[in-house]
């Protein structure tokens, strides 16, 4: 039995009860693809992923995994979150080599769209727009497509061969890719106004790659330190040069300043290029580093030291202008920033010197708008201001990804870009699509209680000795056995266990077998303004019990209640979003 529902309560249920999908900026249907992996259908899992995120193998390696932080299996008392990202990768790795991707193609619309930038946002948008029937061309400055993926992320985290295949698959349905093409105002560059004139819509997805410059005492603002000292580099340009094929060198003692993905990547690259003592210096502390704990562990394992509470204030050079050290000032932790990070308050008079011969600065990136040849409204952060549908203040000129929101993550860029692509499509041809909930009855609990005790499977990595080779991928990927084991751990939160209050006989057998505090004696339930059900009001007095109710928030979908109910009044349904036209 299958139903479709537009009821806000059902939509609200899916949104609130599948925390991984809700946390994913692209809205990936995670339980669905993990279910497929558990059944051994890796190709199907790959395609389910691809519906939301067009580069599953890539993201399966480098995604920031906001889903895992939200995963119910990682909630207090439930253990460790499911290794969702590693499973995503395993779908890509383990799918049959002859697996063929099929995609739904809309009829041509005759509309022409230019996308500037072949990074994750540009590629995702271009893919979607071409499927929707539009004529898409991508203009990319570098020699090869990929943006941050190819030029910002080291090969030992993301093998290039796989990146190539997935980019190609994303663009195969008619996207015209032109590389080595500069869009801007310089000589030989294509002007944005020209693009606007020649196309029905232009999407700017140039990313956020200009390094934030490090201010130092006594150095004029805006000085590019990398130009002044040959031993100083900025992180992202350093990586981009390396990935363009240039020979990069580092000294013996490398100091890396910064706390994000780029800083850690630079540190690990520096190790592979011969740095013997590589240290990452943080303004605040490790608690506030946004990278995953696995990556932090591998970084430390590779011998990289992390030191906190310091801000660089000056460089120390020798007579030949070679770097001998960096002067830092000690910090205190200051107030809170919006993204949950802390401010660092320097402590006067606490300067000290860390000796080093190479300095890599990776303290952030900012967007550049100087390639635009027209006036475009900017927001307070200096990024282009866009409306709800992604259009800038210039008619027909859209923007998506890091270019709009500042340096973020690949999955954010992909999610954002696909939403904007949908808006562009609606703007161009008026097509309406909406999200609805499909509800399918499930006959029996699909998991075994023993699955809840499977410990989290760890990603096998290559031994330290083999990591000297800078392009050798560190993570090996799950074997089919590991993938199957880890997939069993997913509670499959898209399942909804519900007691039919009219048929319940209040025998409490379900409460006795409940593994969590998930079945409650309720006297009342809060009804929200939109009609959806809110918090349960519980009671300990038997005579005030109005219903025995499964708290779907605590529920880990183990099925024990279903199996024990003597009157079979508990139903199981699978609830997930589908996008339909109209």
């Amino acid at each position, binding site marked *: 039995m299958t139903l479709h529902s537009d009821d806000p309560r059902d939509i609200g249920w899916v949104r609130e009860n599948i925390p991984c999908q809700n946390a994913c900026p692209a809205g990936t249907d995670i339980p669905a693809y993990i279910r497929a992996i558990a059944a051994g259908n890796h190709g199907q899992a790959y395609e389910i992923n691809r519906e939301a995120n067009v580069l599953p193998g890539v993201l399966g390696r480098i995604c920031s995994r906001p889903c895992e932080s939200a995963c119910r299996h990682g909630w207090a*008392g439930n253990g460790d979150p499911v290794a969702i990202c590693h499973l995503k990768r395993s779908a890509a790795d383990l799918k049959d080599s002859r697996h063929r991707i099929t995609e739904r193609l809309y009829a041509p619309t005759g509309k022409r769209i230019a996308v500037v930038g072949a990074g994750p946002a540009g590629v995702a948008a271009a893919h979607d727009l071409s499927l929707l029937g539009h004529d898409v061309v991508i203009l990319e400055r570098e020699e090869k497509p990929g943006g941050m993926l190819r030029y910002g992320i080291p090969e030992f985290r993301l093998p290039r061969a796989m990146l190539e295949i997935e980019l190609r698959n994303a663009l195969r349905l008619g996207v015209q890719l032109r590389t080595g093409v500069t869009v801007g105002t310089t000589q030989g560059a294509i002007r944005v106004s020209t693009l606007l004139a020649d196309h029905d819509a232009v999407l700017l997805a140039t990313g956020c790659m200009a390094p934030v410059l490090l201010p130092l005492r006594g150095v004029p603002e805006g000085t590019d330190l990398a130009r002044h000292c040959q031993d100083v580099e900025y992180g992202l340009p350093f990586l981009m040069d390396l990935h363009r094929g240039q020979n990069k060198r580092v000294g013996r003692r490398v100091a890396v300043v910064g706390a994000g993905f780029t800083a850690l990547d630079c540190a690990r690259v520096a190790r592979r290029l011969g740095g013997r003592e590589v240290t990452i210096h943080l303004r605040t502390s490790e608690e506030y580093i946004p990278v995953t704990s696995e990556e932090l562990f591998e970084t430390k394992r590779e011998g990289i030291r992390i030191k906190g509470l310091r801000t660089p204030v000056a460089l120390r050079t020798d007579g030949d202008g070679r770097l001998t050290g960096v002067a830092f000032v000690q910090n205190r932790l200051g107030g809170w920033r919006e993204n949950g990070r802390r401010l660092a308050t320097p402590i006067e008079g606490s300067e000290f010197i860390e000796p080093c011969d190479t300095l890599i600065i990776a303290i952030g990136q900012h967007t550049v708008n100087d390639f635009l040849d027209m006036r475009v409204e900017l927001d307070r952060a200096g990024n282009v201001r866009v409306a709800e549908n992604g259009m800038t203040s210039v008619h027909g000129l859209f923007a998506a990804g890091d270019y709009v929101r500042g340096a973020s993550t690949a999955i954010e860029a992909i999610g954002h870009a696909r939403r904007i692509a949908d808006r562009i499509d609606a703007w161009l041809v008026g097509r309406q699509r909406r999200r609805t909930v499909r509800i399918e009855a499930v006959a029996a609990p699909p998991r*075994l*209680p*023993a699955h*809840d*005790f499977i410990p989290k499977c760890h990603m096998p990595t290559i031994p330290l000795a083999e990591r000297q080779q800078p392009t050798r991928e560190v993570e090996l990927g799950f074997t089919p056995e590991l993938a199957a084991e880890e997939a069993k751990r997913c509670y499959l939160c898209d399942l909804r266990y519900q007691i039919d209050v009219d048929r319940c006989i209040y025998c*409490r057998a379900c409460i*006795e*077998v*409940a*593994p*969590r*505090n998930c079945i409650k004696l309720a006297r009342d339930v809060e009804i929200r303004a939109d009609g959806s059900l809110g918090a349960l009001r519980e009671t300990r007095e038997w005579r005030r019990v109005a219903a025995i109710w499964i708290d779907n928030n605590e529920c880990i979908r183990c099925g*024990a209640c279903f199996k024990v109910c003597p009157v079979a009044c508990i139903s199981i349904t699978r609830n997930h979003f589908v996008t339909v036209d109209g």
Partner: protein
Amino acid sequence: MSKTDIQIAICGSAGDGTIAAGDILRNAVAAAGYRVIGFDVYPPEIRGFGKCISRLRITTDQSYSLKRHSDVLLSLDDSQALPHAGEVRDMGALIFESQPIAPCLEGEHMSARVLPGQIPYGFPMRELSQQATGGGRSRNLVALGIIAGLLGLLPDPFRKIIARKFGKQGPEIVARSLAGFQAGFEDASRTFKLDDVVFAPIGPREPSGRVIMLSGNAAVARGCLDAELDTFFGYPITPATSIMERLATELPKRGRRLLQTEDEIAAIAATIGAGYAGARAATATSGPGLALMSEMLGLATITETPCVVFVSQRGGPSTGMPTKTEQSDLNAALYGSPGDGQRIVIAPTNVEGCYRCAGKAFEMAERYQTPVIVLLDLYLSNRYETVTLEESGHAFVLDANKPLPRLEPGETYRRYALTEDGVSPRAVPGDADHMHVITGLEHNELGRPDDSESMHAAMSRKRHDKLQAALCHPDFAVTRRFGASGRVKVGLLAWGSTFGECLEAVFMAQALDIPCAALKVVMLSPFPAQAVAAFMDDCDQVLVPEVNYEGQFAQLVQGVLARPVTRLSRVPGSPMPVEQILDEIRRLARG
């Protein structure tokens, strides 16, 4: 070789499997060769809201009371077990759930109640049960595994008992139960042991018979069967019901029958009728039922018909406290029937005694042609002990009737012939040439009504005097002395289950250098005046502890011997604490 004396308490909510766990534990340690005494506390509810505690004391040599302090407490439900944390001695173990699923306020978890001298052990019992068996129902078996693993008990006796206990429910349930036990056992075996609760190994014992675990009521039933009980009539009443339940299963296997009657009056009437017909019959009841039987017991007395009544005492009067123990039916047992209705009243003091008194009761009933009341109490009925039974042969005499002599030609059979010992040879209906009548009216030797002064006096004398021989009934000790011999400062006189606590108190007093002894009185009617007087002669002070308010036994002693005693009459609803008796002994010893 060192001796074992370990008391384990398992406490949970009704429905947690507390009692089942206690049952498996006591059977397992008994199978391993230890001696056990155990007692369970139940709530009236079956599931949900009541407290269950299963306590057992495991010793090298049989002990007869529980200790005030346990060595181990395992909590299956902290909300029930919290008040009992103080029960565990220093260096003893408190075992509790380390991952309860429901949140609790400060102080509502067992870890908050652990005293500094005790050792806390938190185990994830629910999770271990889930992991091993896929559900939370085997938590009590996980708990047993933890006890076995932590205390170093061998797992095999447990496994055998578990397989036997759940065998009827099918191999899947057995496998699941064993998996739960194993999970707890392994986890606890890996845990570093900080407490000092250690089992001393059991050396080889002299073969003296079969050792089995029995409750008081089970022992009574077994005694009845070994005495070749023919039939049983009963009406259910707490705490005697399980005697009937057990016999209901066993009698048909032997081709015999049991009938549940409509009330206690019918039960005793049928018992007496069966006795009249020559069969061995019995009934079982408690105080309120005994009251209903009092008139019919008078009929059995005057018609000199054998019958056996088991009375398991509980809190009274009236409906009283059906699930609490007491010793307050003594007066009713001795004097309850109208008229001069003396009968034999015996009271075992332990489970093995229950077995023996049960079997012997039939001998006495037949031999002295009188009702025999066997007094137990709730504590004894529900208490478990390891009991040694004789390996083979009959423990009891199967026909204790006085042989019926051949009639001379022309002689009329006289059912109530006045004999020297007061016992008239008894014919039963169907015996050729021995037709006779019996009646509840006072009668002559032929059984015909006769209310003359001389006949009533002769028959009254006959009915009373014949019972004196019971004081010397073969193979039955009506009293027994324990403790110091010769002159003592304080002597205890006690009966029934209270004797166990008295014995402990006597040993503890002796350890404090107070010369002390105890006399257990098993036969209460006829009263062993000589033995009791001789004992009292040896004592500076005589203390009579008993669990009833009026001091019924003290009253009996003082009434028969006209000698003063000190009473310790308390009605706690539970066994009298040993410390209380000891305190009295010490007070009397100080003089």
